[in-house]
């Protein structure tokens, strides 16, 4: 039984020009101790998917479908139930740790707040947990760090503190939304290592949201690729990166600058731009940019097609091409 099982999740947002679906019929699982990567460009619905798990959708945002977490349906939770869930069972870290850490409060206050709220422990006990957490995320001199403020740390250290704060109540699932995008590569590597270690030591399940395929390759067990609110392809990380079958995934991989060492300076790119919310094309949302599109792509929603037991794509055309032909 998976820790998290999402079925037919649809998220509808209110925009200036009426309702628009930001996430459409998305289904996926996250196993115990598994790291799932969700990839896609901005506007593909990956962040909305994460926020719907926490009941944090924007004003007038609605989610339908089913979200089963640890054996219980949480989509229809009340505000109070969500409050008990957030931080305690599902925690989230964001791209810019400065937005999740309060600049005027000491690290101690921010690391113990949810312990005091969820666990009703004494201040002393909470302080001890905070010290352990800072040591876990490898902050040098945890005791001094407790009395410091977020601005006294570098970006990488702040992200470590944000992770410590997320881990305080020992959540079962950690959602990391672009956790390393704002960091330098040298610092990013440290955070990736830390997340890996947490998974191994604590059997923590992690859902990483990023557009960086390199990060996904280092960190994740499985990848889900999203485009215009829908899944286009999902499967084990090595399978997706080595043997992608959906034209969009193939395009993303071909566009990686380090992929081929050719004499040409030109990068392969997917022509056109991702559609905007509320303007998703009919049929397969990717068809206007797809070099393999046929007439049926314009009207029919693509169904899922299993490539192997754990690898599937949403494209009726491409599976009949070998992976080489699609690289043209």
């Amino acid at each position: 039984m998976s820790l998290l099982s999402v079925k037919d999740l649809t998220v509808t947002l209110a925009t200036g020009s009426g309702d628009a679906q930001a996430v459409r019929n998305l289904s996926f699982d996250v196993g115990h101790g598994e790291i799932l990567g969700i990839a896609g460009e901005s506007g593909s619905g990956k962040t909305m998917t994460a926020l719907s798990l926490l009941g944090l959708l924007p004003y007038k945002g609605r989610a339908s479908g089913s979200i089963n977490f640890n054996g219980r349906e949480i989509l229809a939770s009340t505000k109070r139930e969500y409050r008990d869930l957030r931080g305690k069972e599902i925690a989230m870290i964001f791209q810019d740790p400065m937005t999740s850490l309060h600049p005027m409060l000491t690290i101690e206050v921010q690391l113990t707040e949810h312990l005091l709220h969820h666990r009703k422990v004494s201040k002393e006990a909470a302080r001890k947990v905070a010290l352990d957490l800072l040591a876990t995320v490898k902050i040098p001199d945890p005791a001094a760090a407790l009395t410091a403020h977020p601005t006294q740390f570098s970006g990488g250290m702040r992200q470590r503190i944000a992770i410590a704060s997320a881990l305080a109540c020992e959540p079962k699932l950690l959602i990391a939304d672009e956790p390393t995008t704002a960091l330098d590569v040298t610092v990013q590597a440290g955070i990736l290592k830390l997340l890996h270690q947490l998974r191994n030591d604590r059997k923590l399940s992690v859902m990483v949201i990023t557009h960086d395929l390199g990060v996904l390759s280092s960190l994740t067990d499985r990848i889900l690729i999203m485009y215009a609110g829908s899944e286009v392809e999902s499967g084990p990380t090595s399978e997706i990166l080595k043997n992608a079958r959906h034209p969009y995934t193939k395009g993303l991989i071909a566009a990686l600058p380090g992929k081929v060492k050719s004499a040409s300076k030109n990068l392969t790119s997917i022509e056109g731009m991702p559609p905007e919310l509320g303007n998703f094309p009919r049929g397969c949302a990717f068809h206007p940019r797809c070099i393999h599109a046929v007439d049926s792509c314009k009207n029919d929603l693509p169904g899922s097609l299993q490539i192997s037991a754990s690898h599937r794509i949403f494209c009726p055309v491409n599976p009949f091409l070998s992976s080489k032909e699609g690289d043209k």
Partner: protein
Amino acid sequence: MKEIIKLSDVVVDYYRNGNTVRAVAGVDLTLNSGEILGLVGESGCGKSTLGKAIVGILQPSQGEITFDGQVVKKLTRGQRPSHFRNLQMIFQDPYGSLNPRRKIGVQIADGLLVAGMSKKNALAKAEDLLEKVGLPRAAISRFPHQFSGGQRQRISIARALAASPTAIIADEPISALDTSSQAQVANLLVKLVEEFKMGMIFVSHDLSIVRRISDRVAVMYLGKIVEIGTVDQIWNNPSHPYTKALISAIPHADGNSFMPKDLPGDVPNPLSPPTGCRFHPRCQLAKPDCRISEPRLVRLSDNRDVACVLQNAGTSPNSISLD
């Protein structure tokens, strides 16, 4: 190839609360026409400051920057010699660098009008430029908010092109863009550099893009250039431990679950840089001497420059192992 930009011993200081922060601490660099020079390093290493000093937004406190043989002076509100019109800059944030209340066409035409072109001709030229960067001609009468990030960056590029530049300083021009747009805008820049025989300094923290589009790469650390060479030299056989560490930290998107190596520690505070080699507190290969004497850039036998005691001038680079 013609040398178009030359920096000799450039120092740029910021003054804050009575303190002097040396953001660029003595840089020698040349840019040739027709080449893309990648300038890489962690945030806070001074690469953007250097870019701004080159176009004259900041005044170097020491050293000299020449463009086409003439010394670049700090921009003032009044006159800027027309000679420097051919030296242009593209900024990271296409949302902040375009005026939201003015139409695209007139923003591109500004430079042309200053150069004395009639308004009608300038707008016609703006249309041509928009086409050149892959946007519809009709875009001249639209406002910045009607475009996506990638399109706005194209507009910024068109605006820079209006001055028929011979050199462009591009400060993280694609970092703020989506994956799809990144490759498109990078391709556009490469195409324009070739077409107009410009020189370009491409400031970026994204080493994989730099690797792909640059001819030469300069690696900066805490205000100094630690290594400079061709892309192949830097990538296949880095001769400075910092270059090596930067490259080892890049994740590989090959599905082989390669774990990149982190470089422990942070870039030191430029208010009080370490003595000796600036990288020694984070360097695994540091020797006692590295704390004391600061290594100069030396030319290795394969025509690249490096500032590290592990390498000796005139010899072939020693390979570096961080394991």
